[in-house]
Structures are given as C-alpha cells and as structure tokens.
C-alpha cells in the first residue's frame, strides 16, 4: 500500500518553485545541497538536467548579446547617442578576458582586485543582512501580535522604503559613523545601510507568516492548554519559516546592493562600490573593466541568494510544494 520508492520520488523531485527557474545555477546548488536524503539516481539525473538547462540559458543569453551586437554593427544601428560598438557593448569574451588583465600598468590582475573588493563588500553585506534580518524578525514578531500595532506602524515601515537609499545613506554615515568603535568605522555604517534594505521584506513576511496559521492548528494548541510562547515557538514560527525564507531570498541580494550603494557616501574605496566608481571614471579607455566589475557584483548577489537557499533546504521541512 505504501511504497518507499514512490516516496523518494516525490520527496526528491522538489518542483522548481523558487521563482527563479532561469537562474538554474541556483537550483543546481540546491539539489547539490541534498538536504533530503541520499543522492539517488533520480536526483543525479535531475542535477544533470539543471546543469544542462543552465548552460543552455547561458548560451542563449550570450547569443542574444553577441547577436544584437553583430546586427547593430551590420546595419550601423544608431539610436540617439547610442551606437553599437566596443565601447557600448563590449564582447562578452572581452569582458571575461579583462578579468585576467592587469588592473593598471604593472598592477595586480583585475580579478584579484575585484576579488578583494568583493570580499570587503561581502563582509559589509553579510553584517547588514544579519542585522536587518534579526531586526525584521523581531519587529515582525512584535507587530504580528496586534492588528492595531500593524495598522499603526506598517505604513511607516513601507514609507521607509520609498525614501531612496541614496538619500538615506549619507545621513546614516553622518549619524552612525562617529559612534562606531574604530574596528567598525566606515564599513559598520555601510552595514547599517545594507540592513535598511534587508529588514523590510523580512518584517512584512514575518507578520504574514506568523498570522496565517491554520486556525485548527491553533485550536489544537488551545486544546493542549499551550501558553503563548509554546504557540509561538512550536507552531507559529515553524509555520512561518517558508514565508520568512521567501523574504530572506529577496533580502539577500538586496543587502549586497545596499552595501555597494552605501560605500559611495561613506567614501569607502576598498569595496565593489569604490571599484564601480573608479572604473566608471576610466570607462572611455577601458569599458570592459566596468562590465567585469558589474559581473562580479552580480555574482556576489547570487552567492548571497544561494547561501539563503541552502539554509532553507537544511532548515525547512515541508511538503515539497511548500518549499521554494
């Protein structure tokens, strides 16, 4: 009546529901995480399929870029100031090759410079992500207890995100930086800016997750005479985890964006924000350098997303249709 092999199929073949099917790289890593048991043959085939899909999509994107370039050059495409050439649209292989050129005369390779910058920004973004996620969880948990508090505070929380981060960032630097100990100075202020972008989705989804619990599950807890803390820890919080992880997946790349933007008013040179500003100035002479920097920034954001995805696979035990 019950076939364990059939179970493995349904348990292992989690549908591709992370809303980012195009970024197959993420799902490859997700299946490699293997949180739900041993590496079966089906799982391996699945991973191979995803790897194939990832390469196929990559090839299509490459084809679109290079195809448009070739087309633009062939018909001498002009749209106002926009002309298709090496300056506006460098060849993708030139962008990748630029990573292995010296960043300046007799300097280190660009990829080394960008690697250091990415690590620095990653430190800011990780601190900001943790700060923002914890703050968002705490705020969401507090607000979930009362509809009145939600109606009172949520509009301001929403308003906080309508202020452009570029307008907030300088003020954070001015307020926060002087109060930080020397070890945290500058990059700590950037982490706060990054947290500002992170806490919002976490707050909203924490409220949503904690309050959308099956009413019969609550009745059950009431029948056990469970206290408020037990209901929160044994029912509401685990039930909210998929919501919270959905928010963390949005927040993780946002924390990287926050860190990069935060570096600008903080005048931090060591991170990716500094690198973008720097290579922007030299765009005329070396367009691929800026493109390569953007590529590294994107990869950093993707790795943050992947880290959250991995954590989700390890932590959230739900029916396959709920995960993702």
């Amino acid at each position, binding site marked *: 009546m019950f076939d364990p092999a059939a179970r493995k199929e349904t348990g292992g073949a989690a549908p591709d529901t992370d809303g980012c099917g195009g970024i197959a790289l993420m799902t490859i890593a997700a299946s490699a995480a293997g949180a739900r048991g041993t590496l079966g043959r089906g799982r391996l085939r699945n991973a191979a399929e995803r790897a194939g899909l990832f390469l196929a999509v990559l090839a299509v994107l490459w084809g679109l870029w290079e195809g448009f370039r070739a087309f633009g050059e062939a018909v001498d495409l002009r749209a106002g100031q926009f002309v298709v050439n090496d300056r506006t649209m460098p060849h993708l292989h030139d962008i990748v090759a630029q990573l292995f050129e010296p960043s300046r005369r007799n300097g280190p390779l660009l990829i080394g410079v960008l690697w250091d910058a990415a690590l620095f920004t990653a430190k800011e973004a990780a601190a900001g992500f943790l700060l923002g996620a914890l703050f968002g969880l705490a705020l969401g948990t507090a607000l979930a207890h009362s509809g009145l508090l939600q109606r009172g505070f949520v509009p301001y929380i929403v308003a906080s995100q309508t202020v452009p981060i570029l307008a907030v960032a300088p003020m954070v630097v001015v307020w926060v930086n002087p109060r930080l100990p020397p070890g945290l100075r500058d990059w700590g202020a950037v982490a706060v800016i990054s947290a500002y972008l992170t806490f919002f989705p976490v707050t909203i989804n924490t409220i949503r997750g904690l309050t959308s619990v099956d009413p019969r599950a609550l009745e059950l807890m009431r029948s056990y005479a469970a206290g408020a803390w037990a209901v929160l820890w044994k029912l509401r919080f685990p039930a909210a985890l998929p919501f919270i992880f959905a928010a963390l997946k949005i927040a993780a790349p946002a924390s990287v964006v926050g860190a990069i933007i935060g570096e600008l008013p903080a005048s931090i040179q060591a991170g990716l924000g500094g690198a973008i500003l720097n290579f922007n100035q030299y765009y005329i002479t070396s367009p691929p350098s800026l493109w390569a920097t953007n590529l590294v920034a994107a990869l950093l954001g993707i790795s943050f997303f992947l880290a959250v995805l991995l954590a989700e696979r390890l932590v*959230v035990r739900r*029916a396959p249709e709920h995960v993702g």
Partner: protein
Amino acid sequence: MSESRPAVVALRGVTKSFGAGGVTALQSIDLEVQPGEFVSLIGPSGCGKSTLLRIVGDLVEPTAGEVVVNGKSARQARLDGDYGIVFQDAVLYDWRTVARNISLPLELLGWDRARRAQRVRELLDLVELRGFENHHPWQLSGGMQQRVAIARALSFSPALLLMDEPFGALDEMTRERMNAELLRIWERSGSTVVFVTHSISEAVFLSTRVVVMSRRPGRIAAIVDIDLPQPRTADTREDPRFFELVTEVRDRLREGGLDEDRTAPDEGELVGEEAP
C-alpha cells in the same frame, strides 16, 4: 468507570447563539456521557454538532448553560489535559516527523525525551504505524495521517476523546477500515469517545449511543441506544439488527425536522459526505 465520577461529560441547558443578531446554533442541550461510552452526535449540516463538541472541549464558549467535564468546568478540564481532540483533517505539523507530531502534547506537558520516546513507541504500535516514525506527514496517505492524529490525541491518555468527523474526508473503504481500528483502539485505551459524524451507518456501527440532532436551532431530537454486541466486526454490518438501528436513526433524523434541502442520506452512500 469510578463511582466518584459518574459522568465524563454533563451538559445542562447548553445554549449557543452567534453574533448580535443572535442566530441560535444550539438550544437547551442536556446530555450526559458515562465513562467508557462511545457517543455519536449525528445531524444535518448546521445543526451545531461540531459546535457542541467544541463547547465540551472549551474551544467555544456557550452562551448559557453548564458544561461539566470529568467533574469540573470545561475550562479546567482543558487546562488539565482531560481530553484529546481529532479534527476532520489530521492537522499535523508538516515540519515534524510522525513521531514528533505524536509527542507534541507530551513536549508541552514537559515529559523528558526518554519517556516521550517510550510513549511514542507504544502509540505507534497502537495505531499500527511502526516503521513510519521518521516520515513526514505529506508522505502518508489520508488514513495514515488520521491515525497519527488519533495517536497524538491519545498520547497523554486523556479520559475523553473528542472526534469531529475524523473520517469525513476519507473514501468509504478506508473509512470502514478506520472505523474498525478506532473500535479496537477504543477497547484497548478504555477512554470515552464523543464522535461527530454525518454518516448514519458509521454512527450505528461505532457507538453505544447515537444522539440525533435537529437544526435551527440545534436540539437533541432523540437518543438511540445501540444494543449491537461488542466487539463489533465486519459481520456487524450484515446483522439485521444493524439495519433496524440504521432505519431507526434515519427515522429520528426525519422526525427531527429534517427539512427541504437535506434528507438523511442512505447508509452506504455516504462516501464524500463533506462537512460544510
């Protein structure tokens, strides 16, 4: 079964109305359930039988009347863990394994790990789910999920088991098998059961007494003693007395003011009878 606690459930004049307009869901319900009894509440949709069950469990407050469970107020009985409840859906926690779903009430009671594990093993044997302790709910069939819910409700050995159409979502084959299992569990655990159902044949097969309710407002129309011999088996369903009792319950349902839009369904054709 002790002399000092004559009734597990004693309801006197229980009335429930909803909202300011005062739609009366239940009116002047008097009912006593003796230790070891298996009492079914049957009636059409909207007769308030689920509400009555929830009043016994102190999940809903009555508007008027007295509710005594195990010789104390319904609230005190709930706080003391005097009853376990099973709903139409298993309401298992997806993120917990079968074993940890069953032990949830025990965690809340502060049992230590070893004692919980021991009790879970006993219960897995009782509901015949040995070997599934590390499965997650979504890996089980509907009937198996409901068995986990029953095991969870019995985990802390409550005197009273409240069941709100627990097999209403199952197909008829599974439902009949679950009925037989429930009787076996009832005999072994010695608890008292109050069971809400839509199905006449299910009520007659399981119960020692069937409480027939009418609707608008919900009232007890009749109480039918089920004098079928114990233990009940598949043969019970072939017993002429079984059919007589089914007919009697159906007649009582009709007399109870079953109205235009809903007649008592025939036994055997109850598959898919859904709660609203």
